[in-house]
């Protein structure tokens, strides 16, 4: 049985951070019910990439909200709020990412909810925490990346800041919310009392930088400096760490003994006998390696280096990956009449089983009727 079977989660969250947490909880076995405004539903239903829509909601929404149910309620309407409160009374967990003040107005703050359900686990997602001058700033991924220092870790020194090309703050924050909610459920199991869980996009993206920030805090405040050769991969790591162009593609080289790699590549690295130079002269060294690697194709180098235990690998794209099903059974097809919606599955395996679910994202209010039974039960 899935570990969270029997648990009911009410999701008041929108967009990515909170809903990605709801998705993980659903895949781990919880019954996740989105509380959405009638008709239009959650805002992400209209947020598309490449204008891809399935069944009136964006493909993006379908990706993040499969395996959930939907209860449509107008939180500005007293009757609807009364119904929602009845649902809350039956729930184990609720999550929201409203700006501060919204739940106060509706009357569903943690304190309010405790009065209805003293054993609720209440998860809150904010952009920047609940205090200070940033508490009211829009909690948007690119802005949080930009404020947190993260944009200075990728790319080259001579380039402008390079953000991560996907919503890393949202996704990590969703991961942390899952951890917090699960830990809270363990606490509740001991105390029998409700638990408040708080995460923020900013703290989550700072946590991702825990190594870099700890270095900064202990090396006299040196700002990370990116290497300045194409394929620079890590501001703190020595040569050869990085990505290199070959005759027909790209090769990634992770950390390794530079002198040994030099021998294998027939490069004279005698000037770099002192391993300290592998960091201080990393650009110069990486240029020498780059020159060499351009001369042959990727397979040649993989064969030469890989067979000698050097940590190296090919740089692939989605097309080459798809040819071997992304290296494993990552795909699942959702149950959605008239559509063939293929997406990824949960990355966690339990008791030797992969966790799949064919249940597609709900229509707005699709489960109002069935949930009426839960409410009146």
């Amino acid at each position: 049985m899935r570990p969270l079977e029997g648990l009911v989660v009410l999701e008041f969250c929108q967009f990515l951070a909170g809903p990605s947490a709801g998705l993980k909880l659903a895949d781990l076995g919880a019954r996740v019910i989105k509380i959405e405004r009638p008709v239009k539903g959650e805002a992400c239903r209209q947020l598309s990439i490449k204008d891809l829509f399935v069944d009136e909601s964006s493909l993006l929404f379908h990706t993040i909200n499969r395996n959930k149910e939907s209860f449509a309620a107008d939180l500005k309407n007293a009757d609807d709020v009364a119904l929602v409160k009845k649902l809350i009374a039956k729930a184990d967990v609720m999550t929201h990412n409203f700006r501060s003040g919204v739940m106060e107005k509706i009357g569903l703050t943690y304190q309010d909810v405790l009065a209805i359900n003293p054993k609720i686990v209440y998860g809150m997602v904010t952009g920047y925490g609940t205090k200070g001058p940033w508490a009211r700033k829009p909690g948007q991924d690119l802005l949080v990346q930009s404020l947190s220092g993260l944009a200075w870790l990728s790319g080259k020194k001579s380039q402008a800041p390079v953000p991560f090309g996907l919503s890393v703050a949202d996704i990590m924050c969703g991961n942390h919310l899952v951890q917090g909610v699960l830990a809270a459920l363990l606490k509740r199991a001991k105390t029998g009392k409700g638990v408040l869980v708080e995460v923020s996009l900013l703290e989550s993206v700072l946590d991702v930088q825990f190594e870099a920030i700890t270095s900064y805090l202990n090396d006299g405040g040196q700002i990370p400096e990116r290497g300045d050769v194409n394929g620079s991969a890590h501001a703190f790591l020595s040569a050869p760490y990085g990505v290199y162009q070959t005759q027909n593609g790209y090769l990634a080289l992770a950390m390794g003994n530079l002198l040994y790699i030099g021998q294998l590549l027939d490069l004279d690295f005698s000037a770099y006998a002192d391993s300290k130079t592998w960091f201080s002269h990393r650009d110069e060294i990486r240029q020498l390696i780059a020159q060499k690697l351009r001369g042959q194709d990727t397979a040649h180098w993989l064969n030469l280096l890989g067979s000698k235990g050097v940590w190296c690998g090919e740089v692939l794209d989605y097309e080459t990956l798809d040819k071997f099903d992304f290296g494993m059974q990552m795909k699942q097809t959702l149950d959605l009449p008239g559509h063939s919606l293929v997406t990824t599955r949960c990355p966690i395996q339990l008791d030797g089983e992969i966790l799949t679910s064919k249940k597609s994202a709900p229509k707005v209010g699709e489960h109002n009727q069935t949930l009426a039974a839960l409410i009146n039960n």
Partner: protein
Amino acid sequence: MKPLQDYLVVDFSQFLSGPSASLRLADLGARVIKIEKPGTGDICRTLYTSDLIMNGESSVFHTINRNKESFAIDFKQPEELAKLKKLLAKADVVLHNFRPGVMERVGLSYEDVKAINPQVVYGEISGFGANGTLKAMPGQDLLLQSLTALTWLNGNDGDGPVPMGLSIVDMLAGAHLAQGILAALYRKVMHQTGALVQVSMLESAFDFQFETITTFYNDGGELPQRSKSNNANAYLGAPYGIYETKNGYLALAMGEIPVLANLLACDALQAYPENRFELRNEIKEVLAKHLKTQDTAYWLNILEPADIWCSDVLNYEQLFAQEGFKVLDFVQEVQMQDGYRYKTTRCPIKIDGESFIADKGSPKLGQDNEKIIKEFID
């Protein structure tokens, strides 16, 4: 009360992925004992970045392994293994990130541990799971980023692959392992059953890209196309990106182009009343040229009051000086057994209003042997 108070975690993992999971469990209240090889210990102890050595060991090790104990034991020796098993019999969680086959060979597979501890939650992280063709490859972060196509999402068109500048796949795998373990512990509390929790860096890297991979599956297999300049997301139109200003940089997440044209007093932008995705290179070029003409603060003062989602782009020095950062109290100081003190970050999760601060620094190799032997083995 911390949520994992009274839980015992025995951690065989090294480097970043597994240890980042056990750090989270430690911060949430669990007692975490690192099992290390006598003499050398976790290889991460000597994995230096920026050549930064703190109290004889790497900054990376100190970051990931604070709030833990260390038990140095050579469990390849049968008599030592027997001792270790006494500790494992008491553990709620056992975790490792050895390559497939290693724990089986030493007699500490899930089945082996389950035989002495039927309700154990046993977590493992591998590079590639049980996949036949890949499983012999090293599960290293940059190699996983490269293999899973993550490198084609960052940087600009024409930059070639651009890796994310930290060990993101390790951290994702660690985060997922912590989730799986916590979920399994909940099931253990409710149903008194153990569990095997498995995570691979490969699956974690794909999960990270669930939006873009799902798009690829459903758009006829088009590859992500980064914009020519100022790229921040290959799938989003202008203005989404970071732009140079006269004295720094400005991040711009959204905004109707005609609205931006008026706010920024940029006539050239007026030529784009319709913000079509295919026009993003042109629009970004116009914006980039215009935004260079004034300071960051000048633009922020115009855009923020108009509710345009934008921000400054900070480095650590600038960030640490901000009131918005200071109020988080995100930095804590910890102390090692020998008195060495260092600063690091704290757990990003708050529970019942409590930030999980713990002043225990990283352990010296084997520093807790005596105590652990006395408590669990003698």
